[in-house]
């Protein structure tokens, strides 16, 4: 504390490494998984299977991109799985009763956004912890879905235009994968290059500072829950179109997979720090692990145990890197009350 040291400007490489340590580590871990399953199974590294992995990962990735924004603000959205189920069910009910599918899509996106915004309002303007608000949302939204469907699965019917969303391919790519990649790209651009992205980071990094400089901090916080609502609606539609039916039991445990993907990608649950590339890799890693273990003919019950363990391990490693990196600046920081 007594020594004043100017930073050397020669530490660019070190800065880059420490700045991107978590993305690099998840990239390495992802590569490790791919290599492992390529050697242990014959079918993993076939284009057919890889496309299947991406197709299955699409709903998680779409919501994980939005969840990255929420977690960067220091919040959490536990309601996304229930939101997916509700949209899934409502969309199927609407389609089976003859509403044009284009209208259903637009309506569901607005519906998801509105519910998300309502939750965001409770978080940002009423000061209720996001954990509580969205935990209530998790229960309520799933409950509504169950009530509407009475627990039954509702067939969508033969609507080629709608089913294409979940099953079709474009330029040899599954359509859901294209949707997910486009959304991931938008997410990256938003967080890295726009004023809105800057506001999201600022609010998560130091909400009081953001408020003092006149940023619309409350609106920013509410808006990220609206984004997860819209993203959940997209995921719900993708799943309904893939399965050709809507069910209130869709996407159980989905929120945990999404949060795991985001955290695995190096986004800090404390807010302020996040990476879209990390989230992309995190979502793909979870999908690859799930897919690979099935191909290895490991019991699907065991898959959950392995997935959980690997997530814990990976995040533990990331957290170690995190603290090692920040010990030095924290020791010098002039924090006091």
């Amino acid at each position, binding site marked *: *504390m*007594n*020594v*004043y*040291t*100017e*930073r*050397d*400007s020669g530490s*660019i490489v070190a*800065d880059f490494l420490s*700045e991107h340590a978590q993305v690099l580590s998840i990239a390495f871990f992802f590569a490790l998984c791919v290599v492992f399953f390529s050697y242990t199974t014959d079918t993993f590294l076939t284009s057919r299977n890889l496309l299947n992995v991406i197709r299955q990962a699409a709903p998680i990735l779409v919501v994980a991109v939005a969840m990255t924004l929420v977690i960067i603000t220091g919040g959490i959205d536990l309601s996304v799985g229930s939101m997916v189920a509700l949209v899934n069910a409502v969309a199927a009910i609407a389609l089976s009763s003859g509403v044009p599918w284009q209208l259903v899509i637009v309506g569901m996106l607005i519906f998801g956004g509105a519910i998300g915004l309502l939750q965001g309002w409770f978080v940002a303007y009423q000061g209720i912890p996001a954990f509580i608000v969205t935990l209530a949302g998790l229960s309520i939204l799933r409950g509504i879905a169950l009530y509407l469907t009475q627990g039954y699965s509702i067939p969508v019917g033969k609507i080629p235009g709608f089913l294409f969303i979940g099953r079709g391919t474009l330029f040899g790519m599954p359509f859901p994968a294209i949707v997910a990649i486009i959304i991931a790209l938008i997410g990256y651009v938003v967080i890295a*290059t*726009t*004023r*809105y992205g*800057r506001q999201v*980071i*600022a609010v*998560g*990094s*130091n909400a*009081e*500072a*953001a408020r*003092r*400089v*006149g*940023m619309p901090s409350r609106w920013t916080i509410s808006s990220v829950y609206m984004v997860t609502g819209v993203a959940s609606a997209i995921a719900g539609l993708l799943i309904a179109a893939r399965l050709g039916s809507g069910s209130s039991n869709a996407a159980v445990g989905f929120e945990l997979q999404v949060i795991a993907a985001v955290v695995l990608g190096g986004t800090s649950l404390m807010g*302020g*720090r996040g990476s879209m590339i990390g989230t992309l890799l995190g979502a793909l890693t979870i999908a690859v692990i799930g897919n690979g273990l099935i191909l290895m003919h490991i019991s699907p019950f065991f898959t959950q145990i392995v997935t959980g363990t690997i997530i814990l391990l990976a995040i533990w490693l990331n957290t170690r890197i995190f603290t090692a990196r*920040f010990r030095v*600046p924290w020791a*010098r*920081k*002039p*924090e*006091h009350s």
Partner: protein
Amino acid sequence: MNSTLTVAGDEAINEQSPRLSLRAIRKSFGSVQALRGVDLDVFSGECLGIVGDNAAGKSTLTKIMSGTYLPDSGSLAIDGEPVQFSGPADARRRRIEMVYQDLSLCNHIDVVGNLFLGRELTRGPFLDRARMRNEARQMLDALDIRIPRLTVKVEQLSGGQRQAIAIARAASFKPDLLIMDEPTSALAVAEVEAVLSLINRVKASGVSVILITHRLQDLFRVCDRIAVMYEGTKVAERKIDQTNLQDLVGLIVGEAIPDTGMADS
């Protein structure tokens, strides 16, 4: 009890009308009288130090000046014209800036981003990084602040550099009055020197500065005048060349204060 006690050596410093003038400011929080009638003037281009023990009312006073708190009674005037702040944004519009003790920096955003926090330069919805970087460099150069690379995250900087960025940001709003709450309290020796000379450069550019500090030796480096607070009142004002460390310590702890001044609490 309400009246501000004056001590010998206290006198009007300046003939011109003060840039910011406070009269009979009172503020209570519940049963606690934080301020019990404070008069204070700040003149243009001067640095006024405010000292006092903890709970003397320094922070409350500065928060009233920066619009964070509204006084229960009393009046503020800028350049002789009575004003009433509606909030910090209002104070900023009237060219009063405050550097908070916690600096209000976003650790996860780079130096450029922090300098432009809340007023980012954009092209459409996108950040105009190149232009912000250039202007940030100019901002820092104008105050002779050396930060090797402006794209490092603020969390990677030393305490002194972070303080310098917070001051540069406040100065870039072109304030007439800059209030700093304990800018040097947590800094290493060399960093304190850098921040003090930065304060002098800000002052030299014509900005009035109010400096709150517990480090009395700093006052003699940058201040023209010192106001001493005690239990919610201003008990003394001293020109810097009419006082010394021992005198100030006496004023702060209350040894030089007549009994009547303390009876209230």
